[in-house]
């Protein structure tokens, strides 16, 4: 049995774990320092499955190749894994006549990369595709294969499927060192003990440079590039397609889109941070203003600011050189870097996973033997709001908890929360958090942002995990929702 340790349970690590779970001669361990999966880079991004036309194959061959392949694979994966998605296509909009030159370039590049069905549309067709656009728009590049998914729901789905196929998960497990002997990897030292491994895959996102340095490879660094976003109430009308401005040399630009839950979303800008600011997820006035101004150019009818329900920031891991770093490192046998997975990382993830499987066979000389039985399918969590009244009634008869609405904005039932808890236990989530419930059910993410339902979710988590309610966390240790019972301070206790 060959032991494989994957560091990082984000979209990349999870996808690799799923693909490797197919082989009977591999014992796959997926390691993450966070209490749940998908809580790093994967958590906050534009949630797009890109087309693959904007990565220059001469400058960024990995990105160009894997994005197009990833897009195609997602079309299959979302079905097998029942990941919430929409294939609504994208428009790269020309606001000036000069922009058409850039669109021609993109079209040419897309053809070279193998993107199907792209074409430049004129004004008339453009407004047929997207009536709400800035009336000044002159035309656009139309990429029908672009889609959107829920990025964390995707990670969760992939991990659930990987675990069902035998992958072992180690959460709250921080990698402290990597043991290398005679030029070969031997395993991973963690705060939860030593995990033996013959193959170590570094999919550590923003921290991939630090993990790489643990084996003495310091030829690249990762710096965070921050992007900020606004999300609006679902009563605000948004576009039907994903709208991009014509790109500039440094950025794909600020996107205007209706994300899969039906909320208008705008963002991101791009602000480069120094390498040490890998935890800086704060939103800023300046950043949000920049996004607002950018989005307004494509979508002039932005809602009043009071219609915002959330702003957030995400970090892309920008590597030295700009291209994905995906390779078996010759100096340390068994160590594979999967680093610098910046945009289009979400799109590329499934393709990256197959690439890694190929590297294991080709460069490490490990022959992979397919399991006789491997389960490609995973069922999504029940989504009450999507059921017909007949289906809902059948479910409620079996279990009345599905008839009890907890999150009023998104119509999430107690049954779904309990189901999410079971699923968390299945993949080994130990610290019950409200965000873990949110990412599985959408509870707390609606118009009121949880001010009604958070309290009730706390009760359900407290009961299921048998911990006092104030010890339930928002997002893992240190984010407890309270400091004790109401008399804790008066009794002179110094809890927290």
């Amino acid at each position: 049995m060959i032991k494989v340790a994957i560091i990082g349970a984000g979209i990349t690590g999870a996808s690799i774990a799923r693909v490797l779970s197919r082989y009977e001669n591999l014992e796959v361990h997926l390691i993450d320092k966070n209490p749940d999966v998908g809580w790093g880079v994967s958590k906050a991004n534009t949630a797009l499955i890109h087309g693959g036309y904007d990565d220059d194959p001469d400058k960024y061959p990995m990105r160009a190749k894997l994005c197009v392949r990833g897009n195609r694979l997602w079309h299959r994966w979302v079905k097998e894994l029942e990941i919430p998605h929409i294939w609504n296509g994208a428009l790269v909009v020309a606001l000036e006549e000069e922009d058409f030159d850039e669109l021609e370039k993109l079209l040419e590049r897309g053809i070279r990369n193998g993107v199907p069905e792209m074409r430049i549309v004129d004004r008339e067709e453009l407004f047929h595709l997207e009536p709400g656009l800035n009336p000044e728009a002159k035309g656009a590049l139309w990429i029908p294969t672009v889609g959107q998914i829920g990025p964390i729901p995707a990670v969760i789905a992939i991990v659930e499927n990987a675990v069902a196929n035998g992958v072992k998960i180690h959460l709250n497990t921080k990698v402290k060192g990597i043991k290398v002997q005679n030029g070969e990897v031997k395993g991973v030292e963690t705060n939860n003990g030593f995990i033996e491994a013959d193959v170590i895959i570094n999919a550590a996102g923003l921290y991939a440079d630090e993990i790489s340095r643990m084996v003495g490879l310091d030829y690249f660094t990762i710096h965070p590039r921050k992007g900020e976003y606004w999300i609006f109430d679902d009563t605000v009308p948004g576009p039907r397609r994903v709208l991009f401005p014509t790109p500039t040399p440094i950025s794909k630009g600020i996107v205007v889109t209706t994300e899969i839950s039906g909320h208008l979303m705008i963002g991101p800008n791009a602000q480069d941070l120094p390498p040490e600011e890998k935890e800086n997820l704060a939103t800023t006035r300046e950043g949000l203003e920049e996004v607002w101004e950018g989005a307004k150019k494509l979508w002039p009818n932005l809602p009043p600011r009071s219609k915002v329900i959330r702003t957030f920031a995400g970090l892309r891991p920008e590597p030295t050189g700009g291209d994905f770093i995906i390779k078996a490192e010759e100096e340390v046998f068994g160590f594979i870097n999967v680093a610098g997975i910046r945009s289009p990382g979400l799109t590329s993830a499934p393709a990256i996973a197959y690439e890694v499987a190929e590297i294991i066979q080709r460069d490490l000389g490990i022959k992979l033997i397919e399991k006789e039985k491997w389960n490609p399918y995973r069922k999504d969590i029940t989504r009450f709001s999507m059921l017909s009244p007949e289906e809902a009634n059948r479910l409620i008869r079996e279990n009345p908890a599905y008839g009890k609405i907890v999150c009023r904005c998104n119509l999430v039932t107690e049954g779904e929360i309990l189901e999410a808890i079971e699923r968390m236990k299945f993949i080994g989530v130990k610290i019950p958090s409200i965000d873990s419930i949110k990412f599985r059910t959408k509870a707390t993410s609606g118009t009121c942002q949880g001010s009604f339902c958070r309290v009730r979710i706390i009760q359900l988590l407290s009961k299921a995990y048998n911990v006092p309610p104030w010890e339930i966390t928002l997002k893992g240790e240190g984010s407890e929702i309270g400091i004790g019972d109401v008399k804790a301070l008066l009794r002179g206790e110094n809890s927290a």
Partner: protein
Amino acid sequence: MLESYDVVVIGGGPAGMGAAIKAKELGLKVLLLDDNDFLGGILPQCIHPGFGLHYFKEELTGPEFAYRLINKLDGVEVKTSARVIEIQNYSDLEKFVTYVSPEGVKKVATKTIIYAAGARERHAFEIGIVGDRVAGIYTAGEAQALMDLYGILPGRDIVIVGSGDVGLIMARRFALEGCNVKAVIELMPYPGGLARNLMILKDFNIPLYLSHKVVEVRGRKRVEKVKVVKVDENLREIPGSEFWIEADTLIISAGLIPNVKLLQEIGVRIDPATGGPVVNDRLETSVPGIFVAGNSLLINDLVDYVVEQGETAAEGAKEFIENGGIKSTRWIKLVKGENVRLVAPHYLSGERDVWIYARVQRPIEDVTLEFPEIGKKLRLPVVKPSEMLRIKLRGEEIRKAKEKITMQVVKNE
């Protein structure tokens, strides 16, 4: 066959219960639906006194007030844990309400609906706070529920945004639990709460910053500090006036917004000033047979008014059923004049006496409240945005107007 009712009341808070009790007294067949496990709406978490001086003629706590109303519900069919997911307006005299409960998804028919689903609180994102999205940020009502329904103390060093009643009451609540309430931050140049609640700040020695706002939160996992900035008379931030307050908890008490999504879905006209529906003097919305009461109509400061609105709506439902609609030969529009921010009801028939609820734009002392078209004047020592004006206009007064009645608040010379 669908079960059918004269009135379906949506919401089991004081407005809904007040409506259901009155409708039952008027001999109507009533179904009361509430999505909580218990009746009372927000009252059960309001453990402070100050409720019921008008309605019960004595001072009660929220749970006591709710308990008294619940005891008057005999004869009303009540469903709790029942969330209404759709209202259908089939015809003026036939409506359908679909709700989800542990008994299943159920649809009932009804002649009228009284919508009393309350309000929600504005949250940190809506008021433009940026920074880290960490634990320790709660709306005031949520913190109140945590403490007074579930016994959870959210934190120890507290900053409160908003000097409205809810914010002030929470300031006292935290202080009573031994927390350090470091500041109440108010955007406006005047406090937002009732005078009796402003005493809390003196009683507990809590600093109030008028013309200030919280703009940013920083922390790794939990709130560690909040950034406050001073604003000028146009609410613009004054550069260089920023300062930080260390705190582990930020409470947002920045106002309420009527819950009207279900009504909007069937095309009920909304008044941007109140955030609730446009109504006539029976509190009937622009969809005939659908009435609204309580904080879904407009944000109230006294529970007694909320119950009163429920009762008015119930009388409307009775009249609607008896006459096949709320009849009026002509509607007289109530128009906002000088220094009036919002007013409801919006249309008056002149066929009955009506309670008018209104709020002013800014506080002024020594004023006259005028309705020029009907020659009515009331002298008041002071008006404040925080204190809702409630004035009775008599039918015969209303009838003096032809098309409209303006309500204005004028400073006395």
